[in-house]
C-alpha cells in the first residue's frame, strides 16, 4: 500500500482527471500532462517503440521520484490555459451555430449533435475545473482519487496498449476498496467517461489493437487532443452520434499490423496478450507472479465504460463514420476483417480451385474446407452445398434421388465384398455348430 499512497499524493495524477493509480503503474509518456515536457511526446503511431516501453517498465517497477512532489503550479497553470482555450472553442461553436440557424433551417439532427457536443464540452470544462481545484485541496484529494469508480474507470481507460495487465489486477492497490464499490459510479464519472472518449487518435491506437483492454478510450488532456487534430486530418472530435456508443477509429497501419502486443523490454511482437505474458516470464521473476500472469479481466469497467464502436478509416466506406448511413463495427476484430476484406488486395488464393481469392486467411481456410466437395449429392451427379437445395432439386426432378457421399458408398462396397468373402466362410463353419457360430461371428464383426 505504500506505493499506492505515494501515487495518490502525486499532483500529476490529480490533475489528469483522477488518473492517478493508472499513471503510477503505467506512466505512458505520450499520455501524461502537457505541463510536464519530458513525458509529453509528439503523438505518433510509433507508440510501441521499444524506448517508450522501456520507460514505461521502468516507471512501473518503482515510482518516479520526480512525481512525488505535492503539487505543481506549472501544471495548474497549463490546465487553466487549456480551460480557457476550451471555453473559447465552445463559444465559437455556439456562435457558428446561431449563425447557421439563421441561414438554413435544415440539418436538425446535426444541430442536435452539436448541441450535445456543446453540453459535453461544457461539462468537461466544469469537471476539469473541479479536478484542478480538487488537487489543491488536500481534503478532496483522497475522496476523489480513492473513489473506486473513478479509479476503476481510469484504469480501464488508461490501460496501456501492448501491455496486457490491467490496473484492477493489482491487488495491492485497489482490490480492497474497489471491488465492492464497482456499481456505485456516479453520473459524474460517467460524464468524465464519455468526455474522455473524445476521439484522440493516439488513444485509439493505444486502445484499438487490444481487444480485451477495456471499453473506453484514454483520458487524455485536451491539449493532446488539439495537437492530434492538427496532426491527423482524418480525425474529428465532433463525432458523438446520437446513439449511446462511442466511435473509435484505428489507422490503417494499426489495422494491418501483424502484432498488437509488444514486449516492453525486447520489443518482440505478439498477436495475443497471453503469449506476451508467457514471453515476459523470461525477463525476470517479477513477471512470474500470479497477478502478472493472470488474464486481464474486462469486467471491472464494463458497467461504466461507454459502449464502444469502431469506424473504418477508409473514407467513403459505409463503415466510416463520415458516411451518411454510417454503420459502426462492433469489435477490433470486425475492423480488421472488414478492412482487409473491403479495402485490401485479396492475396490468398485457394490452392484447390485456384480461382477463389481471399484477403483474410481464415476465410481461405473456411473455403478450403468445403472447396471441391459439395456435401450434398444427387444421383444425377449435381452437387449442392446445402441440404435443402439438394432436396429442392430432388423434389423438382422425377427419378432423381439423394445420393450418399462417394466415400460412404465405397466403404459400403468394400464392406459388402468383405462380407461375401468372410461371410461365406462364417456360413459354412456356423452351420456345423451353433456355439462355434457365435464365436466366429464375433471375430468377423468389425
Amino acid at each position, binding site marked *: 500500500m505504500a506505493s499506492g499512497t505515494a501515487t495518490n499524493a502525486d499532483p500529476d495524477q490529480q490533475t489528469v482527471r483522477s488518473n492517478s493509480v493508472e499513471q503510477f503503474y503505467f506512466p505512458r509518456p505520450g499520455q501524461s500532462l502537457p505541463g510536464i515536457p519530458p513525458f509529453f511526446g509528439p503523438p505518433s503511431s510509433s507508440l510501441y517503440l521499444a524506448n517508450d516501453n522501456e520507460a514505461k517498465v521502468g516507471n512501473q517497477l518503482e515510482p518516479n521520484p520526480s512525481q512525488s512532489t505535492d503539487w505543481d503550479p506549472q501544471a495548474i497553470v497549463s490546465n487553466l490555459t487549456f480551460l480557457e482555450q476550451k471555453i473559447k472553442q465552445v463559444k465559437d461553436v455556439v456562435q457558428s451555430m446561431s449563425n447557421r440557424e439563421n441561414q438554413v433551417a435544415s440539418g436538425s439532427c446535426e444541430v442536435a449533435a452539436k448541441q450535445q457536443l456543446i453540453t459535453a464540452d461544457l461539462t468537461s470544462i466544469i469537471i476539469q475545473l473541479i479536478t484542478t481545484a480538487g488537487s489543491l485541496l488536500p481534503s478532496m484529494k483522497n475522496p476523489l482519487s480513492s473513489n473506486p469508480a473513478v479509479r476503476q474507470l481510469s484504469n480501464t481507460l488508461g490501460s496501456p496498449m501492448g501491455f496486457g495487465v490491467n490496473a484492477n489486477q493489482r491487488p495491492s492497490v485497489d482490490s480492497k476498496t474497489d471491488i465492492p464499490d464497482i456499481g456505485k459510479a456516479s453520473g459524474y464519472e460517467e460524464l468524465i467517461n464519455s468526455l474522455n472518449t473524445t476521439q484522440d487518435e493516439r488513444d485509439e491506437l493505444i486502445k484499438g489493437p487490444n481487444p480485451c483492454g477495456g471499453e473506453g478510450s484514454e483520458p487524455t488532456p485536451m491539449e493532446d487532443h488539439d495537437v492530434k487534430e492538427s496532426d491527423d486530418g482524418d480525425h474529428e472530435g465532433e463525432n458523438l452520434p446520437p446513439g449511446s456508443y462511442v466511435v473509435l477509429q484505428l489507422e490503417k497501419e494499426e489495422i494491418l499490423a501483424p502484432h498488437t502486443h509488444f514486449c516492453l523490454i525486447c520489443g518482440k511482437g505478439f498477436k495475443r496478450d497471453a503469449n506476451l505474458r508467457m514471453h515476459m516470464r523470461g525477463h525476470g521473476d517479477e513477471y512470474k507472479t500470479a497477478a502478472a500472469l493472470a488474464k486481464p479481466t474486462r469486467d471491472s469497467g464494463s458497467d461504466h465504460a461507454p459502449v464502444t464502436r469502431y469506424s473504418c478509416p477508409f473514407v467513403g466506406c459505409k463503415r466510416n463514420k463520415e458516411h451518411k448511413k454510417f454503420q459502426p463495427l462492433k469489435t477490433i476484430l470486425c475492423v480488421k476483417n472488414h478492412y482487409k476484406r473491403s479495402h485490401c488486395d485479396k492475396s490468398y488464393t485457394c490452392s484447390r480451385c485456384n480461382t477463389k481469392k481471399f484477403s483474410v486467411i481464415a476465410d481461405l481456410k473456411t473455403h478450403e474446407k468445403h472447396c471441391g466437395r459439395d456435401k450434398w449429392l444427387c444421383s444425377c451427379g449435381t452437387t449442392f452445398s446445402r441440404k435443402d437445395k439438394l432436396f429442392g432439386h430432388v423434389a423438382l426432378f422425377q427419378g432423381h434421388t*439423394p445420393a*450418399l457421399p462417394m466415400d460412404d458408398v465405397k466403404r459400403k462396397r468394400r464392406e459388402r465384398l468383405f462380407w461375401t468373402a468372410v461371410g461365406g466362410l462364417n456360413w459354412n463353419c456356423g452351420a456345423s455348430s451353433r456355439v462355434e*457360430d*457365435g464365436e466366429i*461371428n*464375433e471375430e468377423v464383426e468389425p
Partner: protein
Amino acid sequence: MAAASAAHRHSKRCRLSPVPLDSPADELLFLVLDRVAAADPRALKSFALASRACHAAESRHRRVLRPLRADLLPAALVRYPSASRLDLSLCARVPDAALAAVPSSGSSSLRAVDLSRSSGFGAAGIAALARACPCLADLDLSNGVHLGDAAAAEVARMRKLQRLSLSRCKQVTDMGLGCVAVGCTDLKDLSLKWCIGITDLGLNLLALKCTKLTTLDLSYTMITKESLLSIIKLTNLQVLTLVGCIGIDDDALSSLEKEYSKSIQVLDMSHCQNVTDVGVSSVVKSIPNLLELNLSYCCPVTPSMVRCLQKVSKLQTLKLEGCKFMADGLKAIGSSCVSIRELSLSKSAGVTDTELSFAVSKLKNLLKLDITCCRNITDVSVVSITRSCTSLISLRMESCSHVSSGALQLIGKHCSQLEELDLTDSDLDDEGLKALTGCTNLSSLKIGICLRISDEGLTHIGKSCPKLRDIDLYRCGGISDDGVIQIAQGCPMLESINLSYCTELTDRSLMSLSKCTKLNTLEIRGCPRISSAGLSEIAMGCRLLSKLDIKKCFEINDVGMLYLSQFSHALRQINLSYCSVTDIGLLSLSSICGLQNMTIVHLAGITPNGLIAALMVCGGLTKVKLHEAFKSMMPLHMLKNVEARGCMFQWINKPFKVLYIFFQPACLPLRYV
C-alpha cells in the same frame, strides 16, 4: 405310405387325400391343412413326416417361415419355395451373410420379411435382400439402431415395397428417407417412429413422392409445422400417428386451418406436450371424417374443445387417457360426441360421478369404456353405466376402489354382451361373479387382488363362460384348487392364466389346467405348494406353452425342467428365480431352441460354469436377467460371445429373501397401478 399313415396320428387326413397329392388337389388340401394348423400347429410337422408326398405338399403349403436360427435360412427357403413371409424374429442375430444366402435359394415368392427383432446385419445384407427379392412388399426393419442412410438407400431399391417400418432406426437421416421416398413410391404404410434424425426436409419430400401413403407413423420424430401441412395434404392418408412429437404445437395445428383432409380417419396425438385444447379445436376442423382420436396425455379437456368435436360427426373412438378434465369437460363429451363407441378415460384427473353419469347416460351406444384408476367414482357412476350402456363389450375399471360389491353385481346383470372385464383391485365378491353368469361371451376376465372371491364364485364362471381365454387371479388369496379346477374344466379355450401368489394352490390345479391344450401363458409365481409334478403335467398337456413364470415356486426342481425341455418346444420366456433348479435343469432347459428370455436370479443350485454352459447352448436368447454376483464369476469373453449372438444381459442386484413371506394383504405391491 400305408405304414406311415398307420403309424401316424393324423392318418385321417391321409385317407382323405389319397395317394397322389398332386396339384389339382392342392387347393383343397391346403384348406384342410389350414384348418389343421389352426387347431394344432404341430400337426403339420407330423403330416409332413407321413410320406414323401405329404412332405412335398406341406412344403408347397407353408406360407410363413419362422426359422429358429439364421443359418437354417437357405435350407428352409429351398424346402419351402412358396413361402411368402419370412419372419426372423426368433433369430437374434442375422449376419449379412445369412441374408446374402437368400438369392441362391431363388425364393422370389417372398413378399414380406421381418427383421424387427434381429441385429447383426447392415446395408450389405439389405442390398443382398433387395437383389434377391426385388418384389418384396413388406419389410420390417424396426429396432435397427445400427442401420443408417446406406441401409435406407438399399431399401430404396425395393421398388414395390408397400409397407416399411424403420422404427427406432435412429441413424437414418433425411438422406436415407429421401432415397426411400424416391425409390419406393408405392409405399402405403410407413413407420418412422423414433427416427430422430429425420427433419421436415425429408418429410416434405416423402409427402411429395409417396402419394399413396395411407398409414404414417411419425411418433417421436422432429416433425414441425413446416412439414405437417404437406403430410396432411396427402390425399390417401388415413392413419396418422404423431405420438410424442414435441414439434407439434398449437401454432402448427392452427396453421392447418385452411387445409382440409377428407381421408384421415385415425389421428393419434397422445403425449404431444405442446398441444393444448386450442390446437385440438383447430385441428379437428380440418379433419371432418375422423373416426378415431387419441389425445392421451396431451392436453386438458375443456368444454369448448369437446364442443369442437361435434363437427366430427363420425367419431367412434375417443381416447383421453391421463388427461385433466376441466369442469363440464366430460359432460360436454356426453352432449357433443353422441356417435362414439369407445371411450377411454383411464388415469384421468377430474372424472367425477356427476359428470360421468351424465356422459354415459347420453352415450347409449358405447361398446368399450375404460375408467381405470378413476378413483373418485362410486356406485352412482356404475349404476348409470349399467343402466344406459347395456351393450358394452369391454369394461375396464381397475382400481376403482370406491365402488361397492353391490354395484359390481349390476355389471353382470345388465351388460350381458361383455367380452372383456377388468375389475382388478375392487370389492368384487362371489355374488358379483355369480351375476356374471349371464355374460356367456366373456373372453377376458381380470379379477386380481379381489380378496373376497372364493372357489364358489369361480365355479359360476367356470360353468357359464366357456369362451374364456384369459383370466387373471393375481393375489386372490381366497381361492384354492377347487376353483381353478372348475375354471380349467369349464373353459377349454383358456390361453392365459395368472395364479400368482394364490398360495393355497397345489399340483392339483396344474393337473386340471393341463387339459387346456391352448394354454400359452402360465403365471404361478409365489405358489410354494406347487411342485415339479404339477409342472410336468402342464408340460405334457399344454404343448403350446410359451410364457412361464415359476418364480418363488420353491418346490420346483430339475425334474420339472426336464419335462419342459422334453415337451414345451414352444417355450419363449421363463422366470426361474428362487426355484430349486440346478445346473442340470438349466442345461436341459437350454435345449429348447426358441427360448428367448430367461430370468435366473437367486437360484441356489446354479454355478457359474453351469450357467455359462446353458447360455452357450441356448443360441436364440435375446434377454437374460442374472444376479450381479455372476458377472464377475463368469469369464468375460464368454459373456461377450453370448452378447455377440444378440443376447442382452440385465444384471439384477436385489437381496435374496431367505424366507417366504406369507401373503399379507397389507403390504401388497402396487402392481396394477
